[in-house]
């Protein structure tokens, strides 16, 4: 404990130096901005800023880059809530309830709870990193191919829970997502599948293109159809901050989401995205009072926003303690360290304690800055809603297109986004929800890769998934969840049978 305090003391002394405070501020400010701009994500931004960091001290460079990453999680929610566009991929799920709240004139409380939830989750996750980073990194190693496969199965069943409305349509959308995920080069055999000879498809469809298209562009098309309808709800903007009542209502969600998000962030391949999706699914299942999810329940904003922030932060754990990147952004951070001449790995903690603890302390400082930065801005963001469509929409489309292009410097992706926009519009018209499809698309390829790896390792013995305890527990959970989903469905069928026989 004393060790921890002295470590944190060292960390804060580094993080609170004027230079580092300044770079932390630049980082979170940039992060918020790119978070708000749809499509321009932290990955592209950090890639563009890498050369700039050559000239900084390693600590300042990493503090700034980290600030961009978690700052983007804050900013992303703003666009999601106000204009129903995923400012950040991880805020895609926030749109479901956040945008509904904005329509009901509760944009202020939605933005407020997003910022507050993020802050609480961010602070808790920072503390978690400080206390438990090394042992937690070891836990993540226990996840082998079999465990990952079972985790993905659980996630997919969860995706069905995510959807409201028809279960059949949700299942169909999950399967469609799985199919889309098949496009690209097979990791095991190197065979290109469903690429039709297009080299751009050989790495699969771009996630940003799909998310931006089906959620963002589709929304814009829909709104064009409705004309300037939106003016109605901008008139009643309402309060700027959530009430005490709202806050107390959200506290349990924030706590649950922080725990779940922290856990998902540590897993390799995890990160902010899984954190927000996971938290939403849990909240949807556990919340029975107030308005239903998808209709503007404030917990549908608090949960995922807390979840993605917690996960964004804990995804630093494997990077900092083992030198292993859990996602593309962490890979970029490792690159930044390498260019600075620091070999990432467990020795960073002991050989460069000022860097390690300084960065952790800066995360908390950065989170505080973000709240201070974001709460007063809410009033300004809401003004965005009063900008007429004819100005707002072309601007959004422009930023989206640039953003998608910047991910891979690929015009193909920009075209793809447009096509998925059309597809998203069809989805809305047929009342099929795209969120489960997106999850299917993300989890599908991971599931397949790990299934085949697990089977190769076990020499084709499928019982391996039940022999390994972690894997078995998750599969059992998935089966239970399936039963829970199926029960009302079956019950209804039976009721129908009975009513028919009564006649």
């Amino acid at each position: 404990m004393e060790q921890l305090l002295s470590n944190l003391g060292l960390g804060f002394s580094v993080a609170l130096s004027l230079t580092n405070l300044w770079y932390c501020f630049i980082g979170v400010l940039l992060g918020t901005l790119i978070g708000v701009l749809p499509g321009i994500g932290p990955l592209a931004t950090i890639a563009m800023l890498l050369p700039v960091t050559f000239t900084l001290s390693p600590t300042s460079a990493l503090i700034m880059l980290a600030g961009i990453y978690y700052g983007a999680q804050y900013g992303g929610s703003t666009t999601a809530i106000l204009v129903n566009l995923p400012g950040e991929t991880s805020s895609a799920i926030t749109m479901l309830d956040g945008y509904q709240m904005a329509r009901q004139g509760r944009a202020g409380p939605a933005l407020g709870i997003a910022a507050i939830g993020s802050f609480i989750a961010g602070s808790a996750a920072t503390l978690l990193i400080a206390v438990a980073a090394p042992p937690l990194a070891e836990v993540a190693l226990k996840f082998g191919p079999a465990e990952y496969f079972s985790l993905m199965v659980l996630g997919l069943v969860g995706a069905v829970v995510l959807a409201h409305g028809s279960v059949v349509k949700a299942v169909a959308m999950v399967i469609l997502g799985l199919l889309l995920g098949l496009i690209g080069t097979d990791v095991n055999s190197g065979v290109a599948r469903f690429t039709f000879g297009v080299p751009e498809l050989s790495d699969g469809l771009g996630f940003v293109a799909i998310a931006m298209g089906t959620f963002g562009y589709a929304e814009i098309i829909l709104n064009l159809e409705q004309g300037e309808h939106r003016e109605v709800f901008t008139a009643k903007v309402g309060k700027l901050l959530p009430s005490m009542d709202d806050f107390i209502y959200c506290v349990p969600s924030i706590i649950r989401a922080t725990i779940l998000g922290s856990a998902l962030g540590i897993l390799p391949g995890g990160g902010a995205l899984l954190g927000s999706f996971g938290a939403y699914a849990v909240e949807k299942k556990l919340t029975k009072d107030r308005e239903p999810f998808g209709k503007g329940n404030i917990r549908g904003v608090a949960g995922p926003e807390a979840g993605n922030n917690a996960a964004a932060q804990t995804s630093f754990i494997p990077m900092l303690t083992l030198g292993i990147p859990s996602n593309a952004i962490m890979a970029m951070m490792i690159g930044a360290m390498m260019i600075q001449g620091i070999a990432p790995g467990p020795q960073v903690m002991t050989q460069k304690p000022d860097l390690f603890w300084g960065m952790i302390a800066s995360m908390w400082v950065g989170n505080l800055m973000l709240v201070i930065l974001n709460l007063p801005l809410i009033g300004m963001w809401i003004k965005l809603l009063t900008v007429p469509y004819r100005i707002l929409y072309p601007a959004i489309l422009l930023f989206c297109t640039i953003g998608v292009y910047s991910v891979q410097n690929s015009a193909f992706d920009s075209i793809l986004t447009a096509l998925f926009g059309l597809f998203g519009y069809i989805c809305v018209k047929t009342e099929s929800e795209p969120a489960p499809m997106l999850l299917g698309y993300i989890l599908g390829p991971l599931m397949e890769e790990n299934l085949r790896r697990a089977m190769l390792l076990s020499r084709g013995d499928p019982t391996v998934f039940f022999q390994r305890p972690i894997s078995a527990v998750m599969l059992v959970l998935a089966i239970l969840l399936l039963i829970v989903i199926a029960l009302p469905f079956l019950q209804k069928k039976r009721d129908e049978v009975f009513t028919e026989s009564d006649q």
Partner: protein
Amino acid sequence: MNLFKLILCLFLAPAAALAQGDSIRLLVAAPAGGGTDAVMRILVKEAGPLLNQSFVVQNNAAAGGIVVMEQMIRGTPNGKTLVAMSNGSITAIPHLMRTPFTADDYIPLLGISSAPYVVCAAPGFPATNAKEFVAVLKANPDKYTIGTDGGAGWLATQRALRALGATVRNISYKGAAEIVVSFLGGHIDLYSGSVSTILQSAKADKAKCYLLTTADRSPALPLAAGLADFDIAAEETPLWRIVLAPRGTPPEVAARLEAALAKAADSPAMRQFHTDFGEKFVVFRGDELKARLKREYDGLGQVARSLGITP
């Protein structure tokens, strides 16, 4: 009115400069932040002043480099668009998937660095040195599982293991970072990938590294034998990086670029990077570079065919 024109000029000048391509675009077929990207960024930082031109680095790792290669070949061959990639993109990938280019479509300008792929096992593996390690693998054909990248690293490792007469079961991952996680968790027996990814685990006694895919040994991993120790130095496949220009680039332009890049490569920053990450600093140019590419392409082609892989 004049003032207006002046402002207009000020505003348009940088845009016009960009449009005319006064800078050189270097398309890097590797994600930003990796080793190849880092080397290239150091290289262009040094080469820019020599050529009196600025470089713009664009990362696009799609399809193992095929996409940027196509971009470069389709463009005007005036030396304003170059490609940088690791050797696997042109010596290994063409054996694994259909590529829309051949060796005639590009001019290699510069080859730089040489880093081994390394094969490591858990600390409990029953071998104290490389010779024993190979003996255990040969005594137990197809028993041990090895994590590879399923691409260039896989072929490089297979090439060495085949020459030694050992067979292992391949499990493919997306890059060394994924492999090392699975390896440290004990889910696979052997690690095959870059030295830098496993180096810290080896130093912390969490991995024993036995075999390199280069002829020489690496000072960073004293236990690991090079292929020369087994008298099969010709079967070496290191990881290295190349800069390419498109076919049809005027010879004087290509020569000027080559000279500047070679001079830039020979800089303290570049040497420092190689020392820091346990890679060998070497530069290849001209005919030596071409011969090297050809030899490696043919060697890996044989391995791929012996594994029954056709593009």
